[in-house]
């Protein structure tokens, strides 16, 4: 303990220094952080715990049963829904990797000002990927959207995928997810050193070989980790799909939409909703664990 701290503590306690009760000591240790911790536990931990409990409860909320889980996986529509969500997130994250990877590389090698401009643009896109975007999407790519009309004018009669189809949703998701991928991956791009490319050239390697044997192996775990986060994030998206697909029976169902519909009572008993919620939680926790493992592996190069 430093002298100053000692003096301060003494000054605080006063001359008679009564022994502090353990409760008071505990309160002094935690006091100012308590409101935040309590809010965090009540608003974040307890709801998750309740969902887990509900997924094993009988319809009246008591007891313990696996029936909810069994009935979910026996239902064909539920299986399709889960598969849809997984497929959509998989394709969204993969496209984000294919587009975002090279894009991140380009941005990482820009001058400071260009980099700031591009990052600003991407941050805006990343933050705007909600319900507002759904309208922007329809205004640009809908059947009377600006881009659709422009394509028609120059003689290309292509109607972009409908906003309620698989590919329509994928395009809309990418608006927020590609920027997210770039912002997540950008720091790792600084690992690739100029000297490595020079060394490769000395050994007679071409550009492709450099990326195949040096660049991708070094960046791989970082790219993979970002892929995982994008995958998980798109699994849990709610605002954008509900705005694009609507709440009436869509042709294309997703876990989050099914949950919200079971809540408004249009479909199923409420018993399947907690199971879907827990399923999303399990996927998220697995993905985060995997993310940590990958970053640890990636870290050995640092």
């Amino acid at each position: 303990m430093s002298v100053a701290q000692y003096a301060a503590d003494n000054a605080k306690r006063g001359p008679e220094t009564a022994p502090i009760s353990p409760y008071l000591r505990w309160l002094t240790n935690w006091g100012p952080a308590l409101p935040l911790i309590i809010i965090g536990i009540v608003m974040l931990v307890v709801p998750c715990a309740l969902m887990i409990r509900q997924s094993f409860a009988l319809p009246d909320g008591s007891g313990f049963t696996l029936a909810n889980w069994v009935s979910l996986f026996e239902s064909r529509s539920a299986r399709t829904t889960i598969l849809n969500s997984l497929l959509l997130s998989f394709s969204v994250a993969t496209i984000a990797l294919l587009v975002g990877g090279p894009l991140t590389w380009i941005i990482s090698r820009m001058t400071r000002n260009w980099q700031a401009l591009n990052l600003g643009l991407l941050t805006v896109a990343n933050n705007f990927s909600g319900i507002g975007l759904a309208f922007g999407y329809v205004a640009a790519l809908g059947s009377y959207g600006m881009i659709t009309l422009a394509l028609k004018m120059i003689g290309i009669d292509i109607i972009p995928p409908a906003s309620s189809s698989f590919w329509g949703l994928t395009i809309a998701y990418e608006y927020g997810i590609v920027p997210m991928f770039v912002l997540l991956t950008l720091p790792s791009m600084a690992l690739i050193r100029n000297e490595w490319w020079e060394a490769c050239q000395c050994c007679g390697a071409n550009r492709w070989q450099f990326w195949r044997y040096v660049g991708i192996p070094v960046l791989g775990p970082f790219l993979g980790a970002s892929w995982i986060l994008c995958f998980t994030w798109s699994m849990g998206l709610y605002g954008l799909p509900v705005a694009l697909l609507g709440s009436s029976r869509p042709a294309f169902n997703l876990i989050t939409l099914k949950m919200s519909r079971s809540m408004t009572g249009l479909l199923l008993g409420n018993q399947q909703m907690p199971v879907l919620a827990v399923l999303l939680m399990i996927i998220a926790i697995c993905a985060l664990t995997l993310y940590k493992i990958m970053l640890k592996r990636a870290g050995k190069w640092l």
Partner: protein
Amino acid sequence: MAVNSMASVSPKPHNIGISRLFPGSMPVFLMLLMVAAYIILPMLATFLYSVSTRWTTHIVPDGYTLSHWFDGFADNRFRGALLRSLCLALVVALGEIILVVPAVYWQKVHNPGIKNILQLLAAIPLAIPILVIAFGLLQLSGDYMPAAQGTIGLVLIAQIAIAFPFVYWAIDNAMSSARVEHLAEAARTCGASELKTLWHVILPNIGPGIATGTLMAFGTSFNEVPLTQFLIGSRFETVQLYLLNMLRSSDADYNILAVMTIINFAVTLVLSVCVVWLNAGNFAKRKG
């Protein structure tokens, strides 16, 4: 508001000319152009929609007018949604600062054990979909806190809980780089109380961190959907719910919908630009 904080941690890359590892710079230029178009075109289309008289078959509208903007602001429902969203986001941002600053200060100066709990709590809203938390809260308030069910207070506190990671990181970073432990010790030596230290010494030193945190909390609240929709619903129509309800109703005025979308976009744009600018400023200061 997912990964704003990441933008600030990009270290200076070793400067390899792009063309040296990429086949020529033309494809690079084209790619950047396409990305920019991809991001900007939907916004442009929405903006044109909000100022067009009629828009049927041409690339650009048939004529321009500001009447949709006037109509929007003349409409009670429109003004109400905008006002509610702005107020809610403002209160969330302020509440966030009031709760997080003392907690992180105490963690840094008195009890490092707080850190583990705060970090764990901060991981939840990012990992678990907010929709799951919203349903859990609905259940919780229904079963154990019937007085809180369907109240704006519950939405407010829930939004504080989900926006907290961004504020936590921003303030934690700011306090680390300001070395608040040393500041606090110096202040104590001079006989300042904890409150005085916090107000006169710590706060002025972590300004940019507080600003970043406030902006991100504001943005999170402003763009939040599931908590508001399921905890309070149409009794408290925010901008996002307004957009959602209009988009789904059959007799919506799409031009006014475009006006609200542009306002939503403008708020997000201003917040994002400020955050990027604040982070860039910090970064330059640290480098210099």
